[in-house]
């Protein structure tokens, strides 16, 4: 009977285990299922965050697009404004040029190249005649001061200098005097001469009232009375000669010595318009049937009337010569061409 009881107990044991297993299994299997609620919550949260980012990013994108459009519009506006400013500047320059030309009249000679533009005008006023050259320098190197025969002491006429150098235009340059050296005449320039940016000989401030005039390395007319070399060199002179007096400087009429103001004489002038164009004037004189010459006072009035902003008197009298394309246009007062020490030429 004991064996039977044992066997019954043994029989019940697996049934009990089975019951326990099946009862506990349902709870265990639930644990093996994916945690969907948590996943859904996490995915919903992620979705919301993503949507929020998308919304914010849409705003950023919209702003970026708007900014780009604004930049493009500004770019176009700036292009238009730049073109307008450029056109207005050209128009302004053109009007200025027209007004200058209106004052000068019709040119009698014209020359234009890549380096220079030259217009020659007749000057005919009450009591005096002469020629004016308006020179637009595109290359400052087209403007040259040349020593006679390219050496110190020599002299040559402006026509010879023009022909020798192959220049288009030439006028006489600075003042000079002649002394005898070893029985031969020796031409010496007064004051200072600058050729290709270098002083010819030592700096000379004597007698203290001589003015230097020429062009700077940028092609603008420079001038003044310099007591020291560094004052002159500070202006970066490229070419220049010396004489007396200064007529107009910085748009203002310069006081001139009384003995220079009232005498009618042949004159040679170099000057500049406000736009940088050079003006070279040669006035004939000492010929009552042709031209009596002009006082510096009247000449200054004429320069002011023409709109000249810088004006310097060069060597005048019998030296005043105006040569264009190998031809002497004016009538020098000596009745012949005077050999001089320096000439100013414009190369083609």
């Amino acid at each position: 009977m004991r064996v039977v009881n044992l066997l019954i107990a043994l029989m019940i044991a697996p049934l009990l285990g089975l019951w326990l297993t099946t009862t506990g299994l349902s709870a265990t299997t639930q644990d093996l299922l994916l945690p969907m609620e948590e996943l859904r919550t996490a995915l919903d949260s992620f979705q919301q965050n993503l949507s929020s980012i998308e919304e914010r990013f849409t705003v950023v994108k919209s702003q970026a697009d708007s900014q780009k459009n604004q930049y493009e519009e500004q770019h176009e506006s700036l292009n238009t404004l730049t073109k307008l400013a450029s056109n207005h500047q050209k128009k302004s320059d053109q009007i200025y040029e027209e007004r200058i030309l209106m004052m000068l009249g019709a040119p009698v000679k014209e020359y234009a190249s890549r380096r220079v533009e030259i217009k020659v005008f007749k000057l005919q006023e009450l009591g005096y005649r002469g020629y004016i050259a308006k020179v637009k320098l595109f290359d400052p190197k087209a403007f040259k001061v040349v020593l006679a025969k390219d050496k110190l002491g020599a002299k040559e006429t402006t026509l010879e200098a023009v022909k020798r150098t192959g220049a288009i235009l030439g006028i006489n340059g600075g003042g000079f005097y002649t002394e005898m050296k070893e029985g031969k005449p020796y031409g010496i320039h007064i004051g200072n001469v600058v050729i290709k940016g270098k002083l010819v000989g030592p700096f000379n401030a004597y007698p203290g009232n001589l003015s230097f005039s020429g062009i700077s390395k940028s092609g603008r007319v420079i001038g003044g009375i310099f007591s020291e070399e560094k004052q002159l060199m500070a202006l970066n002179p490229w070419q220049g000669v010396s004489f007396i007096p200064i007529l107009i400087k910085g748009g203002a009429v310069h006081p001139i010595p009384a003995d220079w103001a009232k005498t009618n004489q042949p004159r040679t002038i170099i000057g500049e318009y406000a736009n940088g164009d050079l003006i070279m004037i040669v006035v004939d004189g000492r010929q009552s049937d042709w031209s009596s010459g002009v006082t510096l006072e009247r000449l200054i009035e004429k320069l002011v009337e023409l709109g000249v902003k810088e004006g310097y008197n060069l060597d005048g009298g019998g030296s005043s010569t105006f040569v264009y394309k190998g031809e002497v246009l004016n009538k020098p007062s000596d009745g012949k061409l005077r050999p001089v020490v320096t000439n100013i030429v414009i190369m083609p």
Partner: protein
Amino acid sequence: MMSEAEQLGINSTQSMMNKRRNTRSRWKEFLCIFLLLLVWGGLVYGGFYIARQYLDKSINNMQQTNAMNMQEVNERLDSLNLELNNLRKEISNTDKTLSSSGSIQVELNQKIEVLDKQLKNLEKSLNILKEAPNARR
């Protein structure tokens, strides 16, 4: 009175009968245990079978539920992935827009400098024009 020989014979018979009874009782007991073991084994097998069926069913249900849930999760993830890709493209486009804007801004600065220079030139020209000979008349 029984003889000794008869007595011996009777004893011998009883002894034989007792032996037979003992043998039968053992067989019965053995048979009983065998049957009980057989029943126990049957119950164990039956239990094992039911449990296996139950487990298989539970696992299948669980797998099916998980598969369905996974499908849902995958669909959501695909959707999110699509949105992320779109967002990435938008960011890339916006990056290009911003880069382009940056280069335009640089150009703008250059243009402003050019315009400034041009305006200065214009101012200079107008000042020159102011000095024109006719202008003063």
